[in-house]
């Protein structure tokens, strides 16, 4: 390196470079305007001189830079709070959004209130069944007949509470999220069915009800009808309507025959449960058709589950 004093530059094999004296003057803010401009022009294209300038600034600036760097590194190694608790322990599922503890997820999809409603419905049906067994005019049946007849409507108690817009404490905030609407309602309904159908089958088996296969299709039809009707009148009311319709269909004929619906009529119903037309082979075809129709209506009107229900709007100022 041969410093050339006159221009503040020296020449190497590849071209001109700034002299250390000029760099030191520039770093200290003592270079004249002309020298500064020419140096800045040169720095734009010359990495070597930029590195030299950095060295020239060392005595003053480097100490400050080092201190700042040390502080930043100290900050970054301590300041992001380690996330403790469930959020950290649960692995993220790709494509499923944020990791959420499975207990929390289960609690959100299968809501405690819906679970309780289903259990109450099953217990009521079992109670009714036990009440009507034994001392009937037919001299006692195998039992389980009434439970079997009412089984398709049992999940409706829980399905009624599956709508985000009608029943959820944070419904309005949830509706404004991309996951809201029919998707979340369907997941919740599925969770209710996944609990209540096996429960009804197990209880039925325990008390000797007829084979459960026959009430699965009506159950599906009633649930999808409730969901489809729910797009118009709200899911809670729709579940009540389709549950009521099922009870009318099953219990109605006995009521019309004898003019009353007492213990003896119920016992008669329970005894003849397997002959009930609502669960017969012709009816099964109709239930399948009803389920498909309701599903089509539901898909067509699914937007309804994405918006606030009219009840909210009435109460709002």
């Amino acid at each position, binding site marked *: 390196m041969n410093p050339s004093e006159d221009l503040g530059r020296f020449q190497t094999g590849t071209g001109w470079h700034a002299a250390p004296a000029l760099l030191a003057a520039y770093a200290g803010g003592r270079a004249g305007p002309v020298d500064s401009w020419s140096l800045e022009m040169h720095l734009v294209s010359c990495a070597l001189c930029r590195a030299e300038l950095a060295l020239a600034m060392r005595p003053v600036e480097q100490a400050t830079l080092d201190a700042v760097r040390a502080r930043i590194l100290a900050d970054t190694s301590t300041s992001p709070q380690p996330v403790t608790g469930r959020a950290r322990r649960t692995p*993220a599922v790709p*494509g499923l*959004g*944020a990791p959420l*503890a499975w207990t929390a997820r289960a609690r959100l999809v299968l809501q405690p209130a819906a679970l309780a409603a289903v259990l109450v419905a099953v217990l009521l049906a079992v109670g009714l069944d036990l009440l009507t067994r034994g001392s009937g005019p037919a001299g006692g049946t195998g039992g389980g007949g009434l439970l079997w007849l009412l089984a398709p409507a049992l999940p409706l108690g829980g399905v009624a509470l599956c709508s985000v817009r009608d029943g959820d*404490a944070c419904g*309005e905030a949830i509706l*404004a999220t991309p996951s809201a609407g029919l998707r979340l309602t369907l997941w919740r309904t599925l969770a209710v069915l996944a609990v209540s159908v096996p429960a009804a089958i197990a209880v039925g088996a325990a008390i000797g009800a007829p084979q459960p296969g026959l009430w699965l299709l009506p159950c599906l039809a009633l649930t999808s009808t409730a969901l489809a009707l729910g797009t118009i009148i709200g899911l809670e009311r729709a579940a009540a309507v389709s549950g009521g319709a099922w009870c009318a269909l099953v219990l109605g004929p006995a009521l019309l025959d004898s003019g009353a619906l007492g213990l003896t009529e119920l016992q008669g119903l329970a005894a003849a449960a397997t002959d009930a037309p609502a669960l017969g082979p012709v009816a099964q075809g109709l239930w399948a058709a009803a389920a498909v129709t309701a599903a089509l209506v539901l898909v067509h009107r699914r937007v309804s589950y994405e918006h606030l229900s009219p009840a909210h709007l009435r109460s709002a100022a």
Partner: protein
Amino acid sequence: MTIPDFDVPDLDPATGEGIEMSGLAVVVGRRRRTRRAVDGLTLQLGVGVHGLLGPNGAGKTTLMRVLSTVVTPTEGQVRMLGRDVTDAYARREVRRRLGYLPQTFGYYPRFTVREFVTYFAWLKEVPGAGSADAVQHAIARVGLADRADDRMKTLSGGMLRRAGLAQALVNNPEILLLDEPTAGLDPEQRLDFRALLREVGVDTTVVVSTHLVEDVASACTRVAVMDTGRLVHTSTPAELEDLGRQQPTEDAQTGEGRSQERASALELGYTAVLRRHRATTSASGARR
């Protein structure tokens, strides 16, 4: 000198397209008792903090519900972030970039704050990899970091409100809608909240519905006044203050401190704008 590699979070720059409403009307109520809660509203909102002022029943909450896409307008168009939200696909896309704190906001008593905010991160489809950090950041922003693992039933009303705010912030939204957010906060929390609003409003379209003029005075860059479903006035808070100072009123000089004076000037401007609107509507009603 070697520089260590930092994981810099990839922040989406706000598009700044904001909200455009034109001829918006919402009819609420049933057959016989219908009412136009929002009536012919045309308004554009860009990046910044917009205060939505109006008396009770002015249609503020209904408007917020339309903007949060939970209510479909009866007439008119809403474009959010440059998209028409009547299209289901566009609506989902907008909802991913939306934060909403409703006026009435329930909570799940057995959830911790972290679980609650994580649940909303999940609903808003915040990518799994960064979501634990996003949740922590949102909770820290509203000042609940020390209560993050407490169950919500142990929180006070103001804390629940802030948990609701954390839920709205967790997806780092480009549009943030807050309906009466300062209700239930004590004065100190209100100051913190307004500081947070100013910070968020740098790159986000924030709409704050309120009936507190102080909120507007201290945190908003624009103010829109609504009455009986109509837009009555839009300006900066300073312009509304100027309007207030021009009002010949006996209690104009009662303000003690500067901010109180500002607020009272704003208050006067606000009432003047409302009075003028009511005078013109009743005059046109009399002519008919």
